[in-house]
């Protein structure tokens, strides 16, 4: 019989890739989140890091990247592209965070209220949410910006107005599912007040889902903001904005490509990093549970 005894861990029963993959996933997630942290720091100190004034022409026109004190070159009126891009990233990044935060707050309040009280309030809030979900979000945002005037604040208001229903839906669903769990009944029998049941025994369970949803959503907002700005619905010129800088210099794409492409690349990096960051948050939270 001894010949038939296999060596422990024969190939068929070994799946090192799976376990290694799990560790690698954790490590990669941490790396991505560190990168996002650095990005946030750069955005925070963008004013200090910019070598030149982003709005004033300071050099020769259409300098190529790498030339003479302008690592990313200059645009058609001689403004430093690095400086404009850094400020553009700052605006884009913090605006996206503000929009997602507003979605979490408004959607969270609506979702928790609907999920906890149920009945007619739930029906009312959810039909209201459905109404917003049925509107073409981007168009409504454009309409609001057009009506209120072109500036950053109005753009943010426009997007925030259409951004929360998604969160309301998800958070209501989670609240409902947690409210039906036995530990909530147990807390009620134990005499916990309604407020306490909601904020100690239901809401903490909803938080991880809400965080993951929000972090996966930041990339969408980055793209939407860049898109609106590209269409001319951002800040008025000469403010540095990634979408607008790409749009305004599009005619140079075949002659001085870097002038429109570099701000576009910045949008790509931002949205890619935030999508990876969303996945990273999900991986790490799943591991913790």
């Amino acid at each position, binding site marked *: 019989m001894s010949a038939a005894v296999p060596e422990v861990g024969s190939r068929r029963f070994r799946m*090192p890739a799976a376990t290694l993959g799990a560790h690698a996933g954790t490590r990669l997630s941490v790396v991505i989140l560190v990168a996002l942290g650095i990005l946030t720091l750069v955005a925070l100190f963008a004013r200090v890091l910019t070598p030149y004034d982003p709005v004033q022409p300071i050099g020769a026109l259409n300098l190529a990247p790498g030339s003479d004190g302008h690592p990313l070159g200059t645009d058609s009126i001689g403004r430093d592209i690095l400086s404009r891009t850094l400020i553009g990233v700052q605006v884009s990044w913090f605006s996206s965070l503000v929009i997602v935060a507003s979605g979490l707050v408004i959607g969270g309040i609506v979702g928790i209220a609907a999920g906890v009280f149920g009945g007619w309030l739930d029906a009312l809030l959810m039909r209201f949410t459905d109404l917003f979900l049925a509107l073409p979000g981007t168009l409504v945002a454009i309409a609001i910006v057009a009506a209120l005037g072109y500036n950053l604040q109005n753009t943010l208001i426009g997007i925030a107005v259409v951004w929360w229903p998604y969160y309301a839906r998800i958070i209501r669903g989670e609240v409902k599912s947690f409210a039906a769990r036995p530990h909530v009944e147990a807390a009620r029998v134990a005499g916990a007040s309604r407020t306490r049941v909601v904020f100690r025994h239901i809401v903490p369970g909803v938080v991880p889902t809400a965080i993951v949803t929000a972090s996966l959503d930041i990339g969408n907002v980055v793209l939407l903001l860049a898109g609106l700005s590209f269409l001319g619905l951002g800040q008025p010129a000469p403010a540095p904005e990634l979408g607008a800088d790409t749009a305004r210099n599009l005619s140079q794409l075949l002659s001085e490509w870097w002038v429109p492409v570099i701000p576009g690349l910045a949008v790509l990096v931002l949205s890619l990093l935030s999508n990876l960051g969303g996945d990273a948050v999900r991986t790490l939270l799943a591991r913790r549970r």
Partner: protein
Amino acid sequence: MSDSAARVEGLRVSLVRDGVRSDVLRGIDLTVGRGEILGMVGESGSGKSVLALAMMGLLPVAADPQVDGTIRVGDVDMVHGSPEQLRAVRRNELGVIFQDPMTSLNPTMRVGAQITEATHDSAESIRLMSAVGIADAPLRFTVYPHELSGGLRQRIMAAIAVAGRPSLIIADEPTTALDVTVQAQVLDLLRELRDEFGCSVMLITHDLAVAAQIADRVAVMYAGRIAEIGATEEIIHRPTHPYTVGLLRSRLSLDTPRDRRLLTLRPETASAAERMKGCAYHSRCPLAVERCATEQPPLAPASQGDTAGTADTATEHLRACWRTVADVQGYTHETSDATPIASLARPGASADTTATPAAPAVRITDLTTVFALKGGGRRKRQVHALRGVDLTVAAGEAVSIVGESGSGKSTLLRVIAGLAPATTGRVELAGRGAQMVFQDAGSSLTPWLTVGDILRERLRPAKLDRAAASRRIGDALEAIGLPETVAALRPAQLSGGQRQRVALARATIIPPSVLLCDEPTSALDASLAASVLNLIRELRRSLDMTVLFVTHDLAVARLMGDRVVVMTEGTIVESGDADDVIHHPEHPYTRSLLASVPDIGVLS
């Protein structure tokens, strides 16, 4: 072809759980003879389900299994066979019945179609459905799983299991999720399948009595090894391993003395590493000697000398223990009576409580609860969960409510706790109100709060300062037999028995007038269940509580209640002194319940 349906030799399996690799099976030798029913008995964590998965070649890849040893089913090696070979074995040689037929049947397919996947012939499927005892098989052929009762679903699983004319059916806890009356039917069915189709059955269960009912041989597993294996008669009536003895003695029967503490196994004290060194049971074993902690006992014949060499290895009685058979069986006799606990004596027996009729703790008058079911169709369906229940429970009395699922027993408890509405009728509670202990302690504790947070919540009305509250929490934990340090842990860090103790601490940290228990031990292993039942009985006396105890287990009902109330279809059909109801049942329903209880008689 060999003379066995399956043969396992030197099987070792290690799996990764939560990032930690542990040895789940540590050297299993086992033969399932042709046409034999083998009962595999063990507590949760003994490795019995992993053994079943290994035999099917279905160890979870995510757990990165490392397998050593051989498993032969028919002529195929289930450890080294190619995926095609393993599939062929599963298709042609093996049939499987899982614990929960609802999750193992496809909810989107008609049951007939699911059987036909295995038979490839609908006429044959209908014949099989009749063969497994499904009445009106042609009609039932076209229904979906959710339209069938639990027992019928399990029969559908059985029909699928025998469809390929398997040589071996592996049944993993097939009766655990079922009511006693249905449980008996499913066990009968397994025996009939063996008789009719000539297949072997490996019946995996945590309940020795279930195995004893139909098994030819029983193997008792402990911590990934076989502790004892032999003919069912031998194992039940002449156990030779201290663990088997302990299991048999902590089992509750309808004759367990009611005024004594229930016998329990000692709690585990050794670390995992210590357990792996010697006999895994040594730290719980009352008979352990030094050698037990250092050297692993081999599985050897129980009757040494006289039958060695001549005995048939397939039916031989084997045991893995350093102590002699005489030592183990001698010890059994020495301690065959548990010490009676004075405080557990019935309060109703003393004269003064009957002389002063205090206000009842619970008075329920003509209680009706109707649930409206939402669903397809225009007419709203209504379910009458309770139909005019009257029940009065005296202060300090313990009443057990028994019934099968759907009898309304849990709804009654939930109405008393204020978790379900009363459609008509009244519920009056005395004094300090009611607290409840739930069936699944794990999910009744908020996962992200610590034990201390959970207990502190009940102290809020008392408005204690931090130090006083912490002291109360420490006292409450001590009263239920857990160290104070548990307060800092979250429910996921506790074992099943500890969670149920914490749930009890929450219910009793401020003693309620009435303690409502909804099957608090049905998810626990026998010995743990017994210790929790002991605890509830002690708390009842020390805190002077009235207890309403809902259970489907008649033996538990008799032990926990001064009075037993039998419910079916939302009404009370019988009520009376616990021993009277169990030993002299009057209602036909009570009699049918009692007839279905698997019992193995008193240990001699």
